[in-house]
């Protein structure tokens, strides 16, 4: 093992470096899905269907990128498809006595199924990738360069998190979303329609989740196949609760999850050959541990929007 690390040139430093690079790479879809879900949940609704939206977005982005030759057009297509899924969810949930969680699970299965159906033809052809910005140009060490190849979507996502955090307190739209999410009665008394606000919030949330999917198929891992998501859309929903519906918290939590997810590959890259695969489970163990630590039967979740079906 020591030999392998030596051979890599920078010794055990390769592990944290690979984890930083990995955190940035792996966290990007988490950022988009969880920010989208934050908008939806802040408006008082849970969309568990984001897993399906993510997979469908990955397929749409890839297919359109193959057909048009442009990764960006593919991403735009993914956004539109995600919005459609969100609109569908929001529209169904508008009816009385409809449970948003059940609809979410149905749409999750529907989204993945539909993506597999349409995506069969696109497993073989290769699509153009999204560009990365080489922040590691100053270094001659290949590991540093690899770690600091930051994709444009990560930067967009980070900026979006800051923007959303600002917008929830300083814009009318942000405040209206919070009002609707915390008290439907108050919103109605102010003349806003909770159903409409939730419909739009779910649509935007879906669109963002689909962008997260587009990132998966167009950047990292960068191909379309049926096991592309492996539950990332669902974990992002858990992440929203962990970060207490705070966009900046989402960014931090996504990075933490990304880092945990990069642990396995990083250990493998320095030559750890035994047991590294256990670390592939790290994000899932982390999700579970966090959910257990942050919940308690005796108290309500701090900061939870009052209209959410899980807190009501």
């Amino acid at each position, binding site marked *: 093992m020591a030999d392998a690390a030596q051979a890599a040139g920078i010794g055990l430093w390769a592990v944290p470096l690979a984890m930083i690079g990995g955190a940035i790479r792996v966290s990007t879809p988490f950022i988009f899905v969880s920010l989208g879900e934050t908008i939806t949940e802040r408006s008082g609704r849970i969309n568990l269907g984001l897993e399906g939206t993510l997979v469908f977005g990955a397929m749409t982005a890839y297919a359109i990128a193959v057909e048009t030759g442009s990764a960006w057009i593919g991403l735009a297509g993914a956004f539109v498809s995600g919005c459609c899924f969100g609109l569908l969810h929001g529209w169904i949930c508008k009816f009385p006595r409809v449970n948003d969680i059940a609809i979410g699970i149905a749409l999750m299965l529907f989204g993945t199924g539909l993506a597999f159906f349409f995506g069969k033809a696109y497993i073989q052809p290769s699509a153009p990738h999204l560009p990365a910005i080489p922040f590691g140009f100053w270094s001659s060490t290949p590991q540093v360069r690899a770690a600091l190849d930051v994709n444009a979507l990560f930067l967009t996502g980070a900026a979006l998190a800051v923007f959303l955090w600002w917008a929830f307190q300083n814009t*009318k*739209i942000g*405040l209206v979303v919070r009002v609707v999410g915390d008290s439907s009665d108050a919103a109605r*008394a*102010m*003349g806003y329609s909770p159903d409409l606000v939730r419909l739009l919030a779910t649509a935007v949330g879906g669109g963002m989740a689909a962008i997260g999917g587009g990132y998966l198929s167009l950047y990292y891992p960068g191909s379309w196949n049926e096991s592309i998501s492996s539950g990332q859309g669902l974990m992002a929903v858990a992440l929203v609760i962990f970060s207490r519906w705070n966009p900046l918290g989402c960014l931090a939590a996504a990075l933490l999850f990304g880092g945990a997810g990069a642990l396995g590959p990083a250990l493998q890259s320095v030559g750890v050959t035994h047991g590294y695969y256990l670390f592939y489970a790290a994000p899932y163990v982390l999700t579970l541990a966090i959910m257990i630590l942050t919940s308690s039967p005796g108290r309500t979740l701090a900061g939870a929007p009052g209209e959410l079906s899980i807190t009501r």
Partner: protein
Amino acid sequence: MADRGGAIEVEAVGMTLRFGAFTALDDVSIRIRAGAFHALLGENGAGKSCLVKCMLGFYRATDGQIAINGRETPIDSPRDAAAHGLGMVYQHFTLVPSLTGAENIVISRADAPQIIDWRKERTALTRFMETMPFHIPLDVPVSTLAAGQKQKLEILKQLYLGRRFLVLDEPTSVLTPDEADETLGHVRALTESGALTVLMISHKFNEVFAFADEATVLRRGKRMGGGPIGSLNRDMLAAMMIGDQKIANLDARRLASEAPDVLDITGLRAPDESGLKTIAVDALRVKAGEILGVAGVSGNGQKEFLEILAGQRRHDCGAIHVHGAPYCATRAEMRKLKVRIIQEEPLRNACAPRMSVAENLAFRTFDIDESGRTRVLLDGKAIRCGAQRLIEQFGVKTASLDTPIAALSGGNVQRAVLARELTGEVDLLVVANPCFGLDFAAIADIRARIMKARNAGAAVLLVSEDLDELLELSDRIVVMSEGAIVYETNASCADPHEIGRHMAGHY
């Protein structure tokens, strides 16, 4: 902000509202002169809120007109009402709990800007607050404010929005006596200064006589009378409100001799709902044949305390004894020690809403037979017979035994739960806000039954937000504030203002 002229006169003429065959309002006319503090009285279902909602555009009246400052003005939506300066403060606050006061006020403005310049808004708010008789912290989330502060913030919000006619829907139902006096005093000052006209829905005679200058009474959708406060008295108002309905009398309080403690709580500790504060009841005893009233502003730990007694919440340490035996709120213990619990929000805490009335009434007894042995198969016939008997005894109004209990009105759900819990031998009765939202007759009936249980030798722990109720029923009163018992007094010599100060945390 609309222009802030003076108070306006609002008049409703011949208001009639029909829902199908049901007439909610029948030719009601009411005139509230500019700068008046007008009280609107009536029982639940008398049509008070229908009248008000017609005036504010929530309902469209079947017939009748609204005139503002003597000019006929059609009001078709709440938006129309707002444009004419008509606003309402609801009984259940319409402030958004997680937003700060400033955010709440700014977002309810119709012309709130897309991007909010907080510095500018704050300056405007500060300037506005300087013209107001009371001050509220605007930078903390509304959920951290006391009920009285919320009520005042609601009123501030309406004034900031330029309303010149305000409907207050039972504004003091959640306030301590001092808070109520203070808030209504400020409202009265605003009306006297000519800035505001107020229509207050109430059924507390005290505050009507202390603050209002005119009153109107409704019963069953009709105007029964009214006029300047000087020309009215309590008995006249009561007669107009309830007509010739029979009201249950409270039994005389039977004096309890030296009785043993039934409930004994020592050193109880539990985290509250938010997990941040602690419920800490060091010592609390209730004797047989005694009603111990627990006063307190809601949200001070009463709910958690009751949940512990009902077995809905675990406690960290401390001991609860009933008749000297340790009590952990299991079904077996409740049965053996004869503990009965009537939680607040009975539909949520004490019923299975979609199960039938008969099934709900049998929850205490369905699994044992007459001799107390466990049953394997249910006896449907006995369940129905028992339910039929209870329904007749307690006057529960239900379409049939098989109606889901959720379909009953609030008062009847409460009666059904009371019927179930007060049947059989009761040694310890825990009751929370039993009369919340019920009408005169139902309240009198339920209070009479609690007093009967006391006189029959039960120890009663009565938790209520209504201080008048506690003063009427209790033998002793304790005050719960911030999760702890902070004050104790004998009910016969209790001073409501002293209790109120402890409820508010000022002592």
